[in-house]
C-alpha cells in the first residue's frame, strides 16, 4: 500500500514536470456504479472498476478507493474498454512515400507526431489506441505503427512495442493511380498501371526478398560453422529487402489495402506462394463475396461500416459487408481511416446491428477486442479484464446507441478526456473573458 502511494506520488510529480494533462490521476482511479461492458466477460449491470498504476486491478461491487485515488461516479453511465481504430493515418508527419511503387523501408513509426490534434479528436470519441498506417499509394508501402492516444506525452511514449509488426500493402485503383492526372512536364505515369502489374510487381519484390533471405541464411549458417570458408563475405545489406525478409521470416504480418474480391484472392495466392501471413485486408469492400475463403484462412478485415460509392471499386461496398463477414466467422474490425470519423467509430460499429443483425455485444467487439486481436495486443487491451492496461471510456448511453456520447477517456489509468471538465474550463474561460471586458483591459 505504502509502495503504491509512493508510486502514485512519483507519477504526479513526474506528470507535473512533463506538463501532464490537468486531469492526471497518477495512473490510479476508481470508477463507481457504472454499467460495465467488459466485452469478453459479459456485462455487469452495476459495478466498480479499480485501476492501480495504469492497470485494471479489480472489477466488482462496493470497491473502496485507496487514499488519494480519484473516484469517478459512473452511475447511469456505461464503462467500456477504450476504442481501438485498426486503420488510421493520424499522428504522423507524412503518409505516403509515393515516389516509388515499392517502399518497404519507409517506416511510419519513424515519423510519429505526438502534436497532431487528431489525437484529441480521437480521445473525444473514446479512442485510446490506433494503428497508424502507411498510405495506399504503393503496392508495397512501409511498416505501420500502433499508438496510444497519450496527448501531451512525447512520441516515443505513444508507441506500443507489444503490438505485431505490420507491413502495408495496397492493391487496386490507388496503386494504379486511377485518379491521377498526368500533366505535361509533371511526373510520368508510374508502373504499375493495372491490377496485373500490381500483382506482378509484388511477386517480383517478394522473389527478390526470398533470394536475399536465403543468401543471408546461407551466410549466417556458414559463418557459424566450425570451419567457415576463408573467402566468406556477407551479402550486401538492403534495407528494402530486409523488411520484406522479416515478413517472409514471420517477424511481420501483412495488412493489405484492397477493394475487389479478385485482387484479394490473388494476394492470398501470393501469401501462400511465399509463405507470409496476411493479418487483415483493409477496406475490403467485396469481402462478403469471399467470406468463406477469408474465414477458412483466418484472414481478418478492417472495414468502413458503410462509407461507399466514392470511387468505382467501392461501388459494390454494401453496408452488410462487416456484419455478414462477422457472422461467417471472419475477424472483423470497423476502422475510421479519417481524423474525423475516428470520433464516431462507435456509431459506425452500431450500424452492423441493422445491416448484418449483430447483437450489441457483437457490434461493440468490432471496435474493441477484434482490432486488438488484429494488432496482436489482445492480451493487454481490448476488453475490461483484471490485469489489462486501463484504457477505458465512459459513455452517457450504451455505445451502440445513436444517442451515445463519450464523457471520459482514460489511457493507462490517466484521464485524457473529460467532457465535464472541458465544459467547466470553457465556462471559466468565457467568464474570464467577460470579467476582463468589464475591467476595461484590452
Amino acid at each position, binding site marked *: 500500500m505504502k509502495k503504491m502511494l509512493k508510486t502514485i506520488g512519483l507519477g504526479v510529480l513526474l506528470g507535473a514536470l512533463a506538463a501532464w494533462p490537468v486531469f492526471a490521476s497518477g495512473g490510479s482511479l476508481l470508477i463507481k456504479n457504472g454499467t460495465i461492458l467488459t466485452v469478453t466477460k459479459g456485462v455487469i449491470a452495476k459495478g466498480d472498476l479499480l485501476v492501480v498504476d495504469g492497470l485494471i486491478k479489480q472489477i466488482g461491487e462496493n470497491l473502496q478507493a485507496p487514499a488519494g485515488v480519484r473516484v469517478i461516479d459512473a452511475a447511469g453511465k456505461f464503462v467500456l474498454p477504450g476504442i481501438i481504430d485498426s486503420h488510421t493515418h493520424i499522428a504522423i508527419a507524412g503518409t505516403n512515400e509515393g515516389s516509388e511503387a515499392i517502399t518497404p523501408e519507409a517506416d511510419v513509426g519513424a515519423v510519429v507526431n505526438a502534436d497532431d490534434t487528431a489525437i484529441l479528436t480521437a480521445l473525444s470519441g473514446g479512442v485510446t489506441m490506433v494503428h497508424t498506417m502507411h498510405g495506399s499509394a504503393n503496392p508495397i508501402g512501409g511498416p505501420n505503427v500502433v499508438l496510444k492516444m497519450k496527448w501531451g506525452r512525447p512520441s516515443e511514449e505513444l508507441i506500443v512495442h507489444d503490438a505485431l509488426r505490420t507491413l502495408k500493402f495496397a492493391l487496386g485503383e490507388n496503386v494504379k493511380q486511377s485518379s491521377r492526372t498526368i500533366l505535361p512536364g509533371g511526373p510520368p505515369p508510374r508502373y504499375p498501371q493495372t491490377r496485373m502489374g500490381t500483382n506482378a510487381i509484388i511477386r517480383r519484390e517478394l522473389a527478390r526478398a526470398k533470394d536475399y533471405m536465403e543468401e543471408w541464411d546461407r551466410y549466417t549458417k556458414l559463418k557459424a560453422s566450425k570451419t567457415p570458408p576463408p573467402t566468406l563475405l556477407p551479402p550486401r545489406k538492403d534495407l528494402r529487402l530486409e523488411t520484406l525478409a522479416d515478413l517472409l521470416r514471420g517477424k511481420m504480418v501483412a495488412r493489405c489495402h484492397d477493394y475487389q474480391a479478385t485482387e484479394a484472392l490473388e494476394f492470398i495466392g501470393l501469401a501462400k506462394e511465399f509463405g507470409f501471413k496476411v493479418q487483415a485486408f483493409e477496406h475490403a469492400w467485396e469481402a462478403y463475396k469471399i467470406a468463406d475463403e477469408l474465414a477458412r484462412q483466418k484472414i481478418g478485415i478492417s472495414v468502413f461500416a458503410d*462509407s461507399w*460509392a466514392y470511387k468505382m471499386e467501392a461501388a459494390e461496398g454494401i453496408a452488410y459487408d462487416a456484419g455478414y463477414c462477422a457472422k461467417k466467422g471472419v475477424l472483423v474490425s470497423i476502422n475510421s481511416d479519417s*481524423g474525423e470519423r475516428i470520433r464516431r467509430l462507435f456509431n459506425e460499429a452500431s450500424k452492423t446491428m441493422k445491416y448484418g443483425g449483430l447483437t450489441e455485444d457483437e457490434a461493440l467487439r468490432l471496435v474493441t477486442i477484434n482490432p486488438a486481436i488484429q494488432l496482436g495486443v489482445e492480451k493487454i487491451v481490448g476488453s475490461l479484464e483484471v490485469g489489462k492496461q486501463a484504457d477505458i471510456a465512459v459513455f452517457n448511453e450504451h455505445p451502440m*446507441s445513436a444517442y451515445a456520447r463519450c464523457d471520459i477517456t482514460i489511457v493507462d489509468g490517466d484521464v485524457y478526456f473529460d467532457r465535464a471538465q472541458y465544459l467547466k474550463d470553457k465556462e471559466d474561460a468565457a467568464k474570464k473573458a467577460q470579467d476582463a471586458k468589464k475591467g476595461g483591459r484590452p
Partner: protein
Amino acid sequence: MIKRTALSALLILGIAAGSSFGQATPGKVIVLQGARIIPVVGEEVDGGTIVIKDGKIAAIGKSVTIPAGADLVDARGLRAYPGMIDSYSFLGLQEITGVNETVDNREMGRINPQVWAIEALRYDSMHIPISRSNGITAALVAPTGGLISGRSVLIKLDGWTNREMVIKNPAALQIEFPGIRGGRGGFGGGQRGGGVGAADASRLITELKELFAEARAYEKRKVFAQKNLMLARPAFDETSENLLPILKGEVPAMISVHADRDIRTVLQFIKDENLKAIFFGAEQGWKVASEIKAANIPVIIGSLYDMPPVWDDGYDQLFMNPVLLHRAGVKIAFSSASATAAKDLPYHAAKAAAFGLDRKDALKAVTIYPAEIFGVSPTMGSLEIGKAANIVLADNDILETRTNIKKVYIDGKECDLSNRYTELLDKFKKR
C-alpha cells in the same frame, strides 16, 4: 390470369429498378392496426389504427372505424412515424462521387440560376431505395458550387420518372457563400481549420446586389416594352429570368453561410433585398442565434460528419450548434448533405440529441420542421388526418442505428424495400 402475369412482371421490374410496388389502386383502403403511433404533431397513441385512403390518412387514433373490405396490416409491436425528410441532399445527382461521369450536382462557373436539379435527377439512382428503406420518404435535392448554384427541388423518394417524384419545384434557389475554411470540406471531412480567413461574404454580396439590380431593371424594361410597342424588348437574359422568382418572393433563397460575421452580413442583405430565405450550414450560427431568430430565418443543419470548422470553438461545436439554435427559437432541420450517405439522416439528428437536443425535437427536425420550412406542412411532415400517407413502420426508435424499418408507405403506396445492398447480399448469399 393475364392480369396476374402482368402484375408479377411489374413486381419484378419494380425490384430491378428499385422503385415501388405497382400502383396504388384507387379507392383501395389500407388499415395499419395496433402500432404505437408517433404522429410528431399531437399525442402518441399506443395500439392505434391508421386508415389510408386515396393516398392520404383518412383516419388515425385509438377508436377508429375500420372500413369494410380494407387491406388489414398487423402493425402490433411496431411504431408508426411520418416519413423523414432530408432537407439537403444530392440524391439523384451523384452516383459514384469519384467518377465524374456519374456526378451532376455541380455546374461549372459561378452564376448558375438557370440550372435546375429536377432536370438532371436520376430517378433510379441506387441511393434512393437505400434511403427509402431507412425511413426517408422525401428529400431536397440541391445543386451546389459557385455563388449561385441553381434551383433545388423537393422530391418524394418514389416514382418511375423524375417528374413523378416532384413535391415542390423549384424548392429554392441555392446561393453559397464560402465555407469557414474555404470550401465545404472534402472526403471524410478530416481537415481541421484554424482561422476564419476564407469566409468573407461582403464582396460577394456586392456582386449579388448588382445581379439583382440588373434583374429588376430587366423586368422593368420587359414590362415597359409590353405596354409600349415603341420600346424594344430586352434581349432574353437567362440569369435575370431565373433570379426573378426569388426577387418576387415566389421562391425562397437557400443561402449556404457559415461564419458568424458572414451570417450577420447576410442577414442585413436579406433585409435589404426583402428575400424569403433559408440558411444552410450556419456552423457558427450559435454565436448569432438571437439575430437569426429575430429575422425568423430557419436553418438547415449540414452534415455532422465533419470537424468543427474552427478548432477553437471546441471539439463539440458542430454537435452543439443544433441545440443552441433551437434553444434560441430558431427552426432547424437536419440534412445528410450527401447522396451516398443520405440514408444516415436520422443519425445526424440523434447525434445532436446526444449533445442536448431533446429527442422529440430531433425527430421533429427530420419531419414536421422541414415540412414547415419548405412550405409543405399542410400536406406532409406528420401523421394527421388529410395529410399524405407517408408512413414508416419501425421496430424501434426511428433515430436509432439498430432500428429496422419494416414497411414504408409513400402517398399511401407500399414501397419496395429492396435495394442495391440487399440485391448484392442476396446474390452472394447463394454462394
